[in-house]
C-alpha cells in the first residue's frame, strides 16, 4: 500500500484550449504548437525535371490556413506520416495564402515517400522556421539574385516578393545556372519574370545539349554580361556550397560588402527548434540562426563550407 501522505501529486502543465495563435512562450499552454503539424492536402504535383517536382499543398483547416504566414527564405518541416520529417524551403509567394508550394528533389526517405504520394494525399507541415532574407532592407537598392540548380527553390519566395513590391526595388537581376538544360527548373515562369516583373533574367548551362541555344559555362561568367552597381546592390545566392562560395568570392572582389550577400545553408534538421543539434554549423544552429545567413557570418562559421 502506498502511504498517501508521501505520494507526490502529479503536476499538470497548464493546458488551455488548443490555440494556433502565434506562439506566446511566456504561456506554457502554447507549447503544443511546436510538435503538432498543420494537416495539408496535396492539391497538385508538377514534374519539373527528372529529379524535381513541385508539390502544391493546401492547409485543410481554414483557420490554420489563415494563420500560416512565412517570410521569404524560411523553411518548414514536412511530415509524411509513417515516414518522417524533412526540412524543406518554401518556394511559394508569401502573399499567396491559399497554397504552399515546395520544390522537392527525391533524395532521402521522406522525399521518396512523398514521390509515391498522389494528389489528394494528406501530409503535415510544422513551422515556418528560421531566418529570412531582409527584403525590407533591400528596398530602394539593386537586387542581384543568383541560383544554381535546385537553389532556385528558396529564391522563388524573394522573387515573388519583389514582383509584389516591384516599385520598391531598383534594378533586379536574376542569374540562373544549371548543369544541364534539362535540369533548369521553372523555365515556364522565365518569360513572366522578365516581362511582368521586369527582372533581368539570364541563364547559363554547364553542359549544353543540342537543343540549348543560350550561354554555356560556369555561372560566374554571367557577371561579364551585367553591370553591377556595387555600392547599391544586395545579393542573394543559393546553390550548392561550392557554387555559392565561388560566386560570393567573385562578388566580394567586385566590391559588394559581405554583409549584403545572403546565402541559405542546408543541413538535415530533425527538430527545427534548436534542440536536436543535428544542423549545427560550428556553434550555430542552422534552424534558428539560419538557414539564411549573410556571407560575413558564413565566412566566420567553422565548418560551414
Amino acid at each position: 500500500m502506498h502511504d498517501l501522505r508521501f505520494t507526490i501529486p502529479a503536476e499538470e502543465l497548464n493546458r488551455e484550449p488548443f490555440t494556433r495563435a502565434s506562439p506566446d512562450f511566456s504561456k506554457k499552454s502554447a507549447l503544443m504548437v511546436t510538435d503538432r503539424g498543420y494537416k495539408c492536402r496535396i492539391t497538385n504535383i508538377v514534374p519539373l525535371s527528372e529529379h524535381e517536382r513541385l508539390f502544391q499543398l493546401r492547409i485543410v483547416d481554414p483557420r490554420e490556413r489563415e494563420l500560416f504566414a512565412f517570410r521569404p527564405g524560411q523553411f518548414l518541416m514536412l511530415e509524411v506520416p509513417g515516414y518522417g520529417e524533412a526540412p524543406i524551403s518554401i518556394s511559394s509567394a508569401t502573399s499567396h495564402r491559399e497554397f504552399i508550394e515546395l520544390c522537392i528533389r527525391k533524395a532521402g526517405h521522406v522525399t521518396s515517400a512523398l514521390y509515391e504520394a498522389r494528389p489528394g494525399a494528406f501530409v503535415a507541415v510544422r513551422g515556418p522556421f528560421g531566418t529570412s532574407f531582409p527584403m525590407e532592407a533591400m528596398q530602394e537598392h539593386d537586387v542581384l539574385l543568383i541560383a544554381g540548380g535546385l537553389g532556385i527553390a528558396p529564391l522563388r519566395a524573394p522573387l515573388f516578393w519583389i514582383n509584389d513590391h516591384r516599385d520598391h526595388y531598383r534594378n533586379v537581376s536574376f542569374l540562373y545556372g544549371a548543369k544541364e538544360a534539362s535540369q533548369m527548373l521553372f523555365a515556364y515562369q522565365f518569360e513572366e519574370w522578365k516581362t511582368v516583373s521586369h527582372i533581368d533574367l539570364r541563364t547559363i548551362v554547364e553542359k549544353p545539349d543540342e537543343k540549348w541555344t543560350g550561354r554555356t559555362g560556369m555561372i560566374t561568367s554571367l557577371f561579364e554580361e551585367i553591370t553591377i552597381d556595387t555600392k547599391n546592390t544586395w545579393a542573394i545566392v543559393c546553390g550548392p556550397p561550392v557554387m555559392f562560395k565561388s560566386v560570393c568570392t567573385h562578388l566580394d572582389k567586385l566590391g559588394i560588402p559581405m554583409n549584403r550577400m545572403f546565402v541559405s545553408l542546408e543541413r538535415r534538421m530533425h527538430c527545427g527548434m534548436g534542440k536536436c543539434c543535428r544542423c549545427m554549423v560550428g556553434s550555430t544552429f542552422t534552424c534558428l540562426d539560419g538557414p539564411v545567413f549573410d556571407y560575413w557570418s558564413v565566412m566566420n562559421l567553422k565548418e560551414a563550407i
Partner: protein
Amino acid sequence: MNHLGFDTEKLKIGSFDFTCCEGCQLQLANHESTLPEFLALLDIRNFREISSERLDDSDIALVEGSITRSDEVERLKAIRAQAKVLVAYGTCACFGGMNAQKNKFPKEECIRTVYGDKQIDTMPEAHKISDFVQVDYSIPGCPVSKEEVERIVVSIATRSPIALPKYPVCVECKQRLNTCLFDLGEVCLGPISRAGCDAVCPSGKTVCLGCRGPADDINYASFTELVRDKGLSTEEMREKLAFYNGFTEYLNHEG
C-alpha cells in the same frame, strides 16, 4: 495506412534455407504479440516452417544459411532468377556464419571429424550467399531480431527504404545500463559490431560476438589497441572476430 493514395499490398514471400539451423526462419513465427498483424502483411508462398504452400512465385525471397555444397549454388541461382527481391536472411547468409569455422581447417580433416569415413560432398569453405548471387538487402543476426524483421517487412510494404543502424552495439548496450563487459575483464565485440539487436547478449552478460557484422567505418586499429591495453588476449579477440566470419576483411588485412 493509405493516406498517400496507394494501398499496401501483401508481400508474396518465400523462405528458403541452405546450410543452417533454420533458427532465423523460426524467428518469423516468433513474437506472438504482433504475429497476426505480421502475417497479415504477408502472402506466404513457400515456407516450410509455417505453411504447407510450395509455390515459386514469391516477390521476396528470404534466403537463410550459408552455401557449402555445389548443388546449393544451383538452387540459390534459381531462387535469384525468380525473385524480385532477394534478402540475405541471418548471419549465415550474410557472412557465412558459424559454418565458416570450417574454413580454417583442411577439408578432409573436417569431414573426418564430423562424418568419419562417410563420403560427403562439401566445398572447402562455407560461403556467404553474396559470393554467388546479387543480394538486395541483408538482415544479419544470429538469430535475426524479430523486431527488425517486422520493421523491414513494414518498410517494404509501405514502400519505405530499408536501413540498418550504422553505429555499434555500445549505443544500445549503454542505453540498457549494462556494465561494460571490458570492465568485467572480457573481450566484447560490441564497440565494432553493428547495432540493431538491442544489445541482447551483453544484457545477458554474454560478450558480443559480432553476429551482425562490423558497423560502418569501424576503428579496428583502436579496438585491437584497447584489447592489448586492457591486458586481454588478442588471440581470444581474433577467435571471436572469426566466430561468425563477419570480420574477415579486418583479420585478413592484419595478415
